[in-house]
């Protein structure tokens, strides 16, 4: 950290290099976000006649936000999201770290095959996920005991959703950590080997601390992903009565914006969630930075 960029150059290169990203971000992320915020303060109002002689977008003040806040469904959707996160994030981070270290370990075999295998779920499109898990979980066809065990019970549903989520992202996170391991200079490990350290000791004492920033990065991004939980419960929804269209906050945003013709309420829910996410992420980021500092010092 200290060395990077210490020497200042008058070069325009860094600015030129960042410019495309910033420009595109402004056009395709921040401008739409500002527009979405504007929409969250509006609503459609119908006047005159049975079906409205005029239909206009009018200023709604904070009413979309207050109705989100007042809706008990919103709060229970937050609870459900957090429950899945509490189950899923630690499992994802630990498994990804273990798999990445194994892939990088000396003498590990089948690494190419297992790397592809681990990554495969990430390539399975959501279109098919619903069918796939239906056949695995539902009593009529389940090869994994769906006939005797209810995967869609009021409690088990959280583990079921978390499992689908972990399954989907484990390869992604493993690949990110594996990349971090591949970028490590070979000499440190070699030196330890010469000193007679075992493979496990090298993995835990040398490699693990070195990739700590990458681990905290995937933890942070897993947290953000968990707060944006959407794909997995959406894929499972057609299979069970246990998942409603507002099961997690983003599903509510989706049904408002894409099904119920209420982009305004959807945007308000999304920004409410966003504010909470920022708070959690800032807190999480602070903890991660502190941990990283402690480890690297």
């Amino acid at each position, binding site marked *: 950290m200290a060395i990077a960029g210490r020497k200042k150059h008058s070069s325009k290169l860094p600015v030129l290099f*960042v410019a495309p990203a910033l420009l*595109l971000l402004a056009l*395709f992320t921040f401008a739409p976000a500002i527009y979405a915020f504007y929409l969250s303060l509006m609503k459609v109002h119908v006047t005159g006649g049975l079906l409205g002689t005029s239909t206009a977008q009018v200023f709604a003040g904070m009413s979309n936000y207050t109705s989100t806040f007042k809706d008990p469904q919103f709060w229970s959707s937050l609870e459900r999201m957090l429950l899945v996160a509490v189950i899923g994030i630690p499992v994802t981070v630990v498994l990804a770290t273990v798999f990445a270290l194994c892939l990088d370990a000396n003498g590990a075999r089948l690494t190419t095959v297992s790397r592809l295998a681990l990554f*495969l779920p990430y*390539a399975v499109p959501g279109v098919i996920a619903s069918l796939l898990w239906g056949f695995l979980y539902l009593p009529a066809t389940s090869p994994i005991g769906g006939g005797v065990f209810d995967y869609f019970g009021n409690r088990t549903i959280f583990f079921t959703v978390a499992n689908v989520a972990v399954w989907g992202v*484990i390869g992604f996170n493993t690949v990110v950590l594996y990349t971090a391991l591949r970028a490590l200079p070979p000499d440190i490990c070699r030196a330890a080997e010469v000193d007679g350290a075992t493979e496990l000791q090298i993995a835990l004492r040398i490699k693990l601390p*070195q990739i700590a920033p990458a681990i905290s990065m995937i933890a942070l991004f897993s947290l953000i992903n968990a707060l944006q939980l959407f794909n997995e419960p959406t894929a499972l929804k057609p299979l069970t009565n246990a998942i409603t269209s507002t099961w997690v906050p983003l599903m509510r945003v989706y049904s408002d914006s894409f099904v119920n013709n209420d982009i305004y309420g959807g945007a308000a829910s999304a920004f409410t969630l966003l504010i909470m996410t920022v708070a959690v992420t800032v807190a999480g980021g602070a903890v991660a930075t502190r941990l990283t500092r402690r480890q690297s010092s």
Partner: protein
Amino acid sequence: MTTTAIAPGRMTGKNAAAGGSRPPRRAINWRATIILLIGGLYCVLPALWILVAATKSNAQLFSTPPYAPSSLKSFDSNMSGILGWNGHIFLRWWLNSLIYAAGGGILSTIIAGMAGYALGKYTFTGSRLIFRIIVAAVLLPQILLAVPQYLLLAKFGMTNSYQSVILPQLVSPFAIYLCKIYAEAGVPDEIMEAVRIDGGSEFRIFWSVGSRLMLPALVTVLLLQFIAVWNNFLLPFVMLNNSSLYPLTLGLYGMIQPTGGQPNEYSLVIAGVFLAIVPLAILFLSLQRFWRIDLLSGGIKS
């Protein structure tokens, strides 16, 4: 942080050719191999269902056990069924997916690589703020942005086109973040300084040193972005109205919507998904050799 520990490589060409950082031939590490095997099975078994299901007709899909393959004949008829469906439109969708994913993936990797390198290796006015702004963008879910993106693009008459699907996906905050931390850790200041002393321009430093040392990160980003765009559903769903512009996700999804009028083509869709995953596996396998950067970095350093 980690940069201080990095010393220029001292590998000989012979050592590198024999397999990178690893000393040649080693006893099998059973513990690691078994863990990988279990993890691999956990991930592959559910996905394997797609392969098995692709050998079934619609009737067999719901009547035979999920992991009992049916017949090559059904597999063939599913394949020809999906390829010939609705005037061979599947091939068009496949090609569209490739255009979106390759276009979006390559461009966004370049953009992320440049931005990550600049933010990781240089300090300039506002660089920390810029980095924070970029990372903050990850908090904005696509579900929130999709409709406003559509309405804004529509103002410029840009919806229902290839660029309407590619442009909004060109910047990935996660990719930039990844590139930044790899540039910080993986591109040593010493080497940059050495090129500088030799009279190399800043761009030359990036081109001949930075970009190559960042290769593992760039390969990872390309892979992740390619697949993210390939499997993206929401954005093309919002942007496109013309089925000849659809990517695979959108086209296949449309085939299994219960419509009350026509039967669902499950087995054809499964065959289609099977064909959609194959190029991703090929991409993955062909990119993986770039993770073994030792050869390249050894070459640069000597």
